[in-house]
């Protein structure tokens, strides 16, 4: 099976709508800002989401490996992993793509260009990407804890070195 051509033809619109849905997971005041501000450094979260979603969608269309999708997934999940989201909310943005796909394909299905099976197939491919999001989330949380432990160790590292150092006989 193959993904319907319309999903490639309408790539910019699909990515934009997915972006819009992901941004809506933030509080309304924040979402407004994320959509409006275009400067990548004045709006780092918006930029990270844009880059990540674009890369994910393009890779997903082409059927690339998880390894190739990883950096784009990391761009988004690393951020959501430390924001005010539950783990489900943090990774669940992937599922929002299903909503966008449904919106795109339903009219095509009604016209008979595309079948329900095609939509199901597309959904199953999204599921695979969803699983990758979990893996990335777990890795990010591990790195977060490791970084914290390292910082604590660093605080006393130099003191240990000093204590353990041999002093020359006087």
């Amino acid at each position, binding site marked *: 099976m193959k993904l319907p051509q319309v999903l490639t033809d309408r790539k910019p619109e699909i990515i934009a709508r997915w972006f819009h849905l992901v941004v809506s997971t933030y509080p309304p005041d*924040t979402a407004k800002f994320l959509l409006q501000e275009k400067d990548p450094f004045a709006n780092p*979260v918006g930029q990270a989401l844009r880059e990540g979603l674009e890369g994910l969608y393009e890779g997903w269309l082409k059927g690339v490996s998880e390894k190739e999708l990883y950096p784009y997934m990391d761009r988004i999940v690393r951020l959501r992993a430390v924001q005010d989201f539950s783990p489900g909310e943090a990774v*669940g943005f992937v599922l929002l793509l299903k909503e966008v796909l449904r919106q795109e394909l339903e009219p095509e299905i009604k016209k008979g260009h595309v079948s329900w099976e095609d939509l199901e197939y597309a959904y199953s491919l999204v599921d695979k990407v969803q699983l990758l999001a979990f893996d990335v989330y777990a890795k990010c949380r591990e790195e977060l804890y490791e970084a914290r432990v390292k*910082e604590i160790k660093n605080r006393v590292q130099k003191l240990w*070195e000093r204590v353990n150092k041999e002093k020359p006989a006087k």
Partner: protein
Amino acid sequence: MSRISKPEELMKINYRPPKTGWMDTPVEFRRGTWLYAAKPKSLEVLGLPNPREWSPEEEDWKLPENWKEILLQGLKERLERFRSLKLFLDICVRCGACADKCHFFLGSGDPKNMPVLRAELLRSIYRRDFTTTGKILGRLVGARELTVEVVKEWYYYFYQCTECRRCSLYCPFGIDTAEITMLGRELLGLLGCYPDWTVASAANCYRIGNHVGIEPHAFRDMVEFCVDEIENITGIRVEPTFNRKGAEILFIAPSGDVFADPGIYTFMGYLMLFHEIGLDYTLSTYASEGGNFGLFTSHEVMKRLNAKMYAEAKRLGVKWILGGECGHMWRVIHQYMDTMNGPADFLEEPVSPITGTKFENAKSTKMVHICEFTADLIRHGKLNLDPSRNDHLIVTFHDSCNPSRAMGFFEEPRYILRHVCRNFYEMPENTIKENTFCCGSGAGLNADENFEMRMRGGFPRANAVRYVHQKYGVNLLACICAIDRAALPALMDYWVPGVAVAGVHELLGNALVMKGEKERTTTLRGEPLEGKGEREGEMEPGRNDA
């Protein structure tokens, strides 16, 4: 065909406005996003009220019976005492220019971190109890009642502001949210609601001399350790003195530079520099802390801690004070010290003994920043530098909030960097100099228990570093703040692995060609120099390991 459930339903996305407005949305104290409560002992040492065991996670914060009265009275006193507070609370027109400028808002996506809303947390109480329209019209004019939930909210949000003042840059009225945060924290302090990290450090500084709580003999020992390391690397034994009466200059560095990694390499840089130019200086085991966590506690504590510097300068009979690469230290000195602990009429207007330069900007405080001092030395050609020793480093500079935005210090550190390294790249314009993004761990937030919160706050800065890391291969983030040196390594570990953190004087130490030194084979960190030994692959300069 069964109905395919909509993802928004799973995700609970609500396109309609939230059911509860900001005033009614209570705070959830999730682990990783707040600071532990101060232990009773720390409060007792400083004579602060209501010492007791408590935790923000618990329902009952064990506030005094008359907590509401205390708070309102405290607010009333501060409104009368500080014209700025009254002005800031009255004058905001909610234009929103500040809203998207705060690094905590950008990183967390939490609207209450918009500076305008952060100030509203306090302003809404002010309006209700101190303005006539507020008393009559209540919610209609944004007034609300002071409840225990509000107190909890203040604790959560006033310790999510690093007092970096980026917001005030954009405010058409110049409202300084940092001052609102400071006073908000003071009000919480009246109830004894302080985080441990700030108050324990302030208590240590008060009782022992520095935030870390290292006693004079141990302080001296750590400095000897630095001296040993310098000797290993350069073959020269530098000789710092302690508490020496009659020295020309008293040098005060942040304690983080004496004990922690990577600050300690910056400290080595200072010692090497002073030795090389033959500076007549002394360290002090009494005034062993440049920093001042009193700034993050209250006016009174800030004043008490800062008094040490002038007291010691007077006792030792020095001419003026040279200060190290510390961030908030310079905010205190530049903005408060003069009227707070001054005038320092027992000190002289600083003149560099090496170049003769008069530091007229320090005429009143009698304190000079080491970057000014060193930049002046380089300008007069007094230092022999070999920047090729830093060739393995591709450097960018992080403007630390307090020296740059608060003190106006942009060029001197860059001047030094351009002379000690050959690969230097700036981060994007709107993230540096007066627009600099805070590290996310300032103002006493750099504890490890709120690590997640710090990662949020530091994201805008890290994002800019990531950009230059990817574009130019930047592997070193230089800065002139000890809290930055303590906090940025972790930030880089999470967001931009491969970028190390260093003070400007560490790089200077690497590049400094000292009279009578042996051939250098390593950097101050013990990493082999180019062509002098085996390198363990490209990651070497980027490691933040001790």
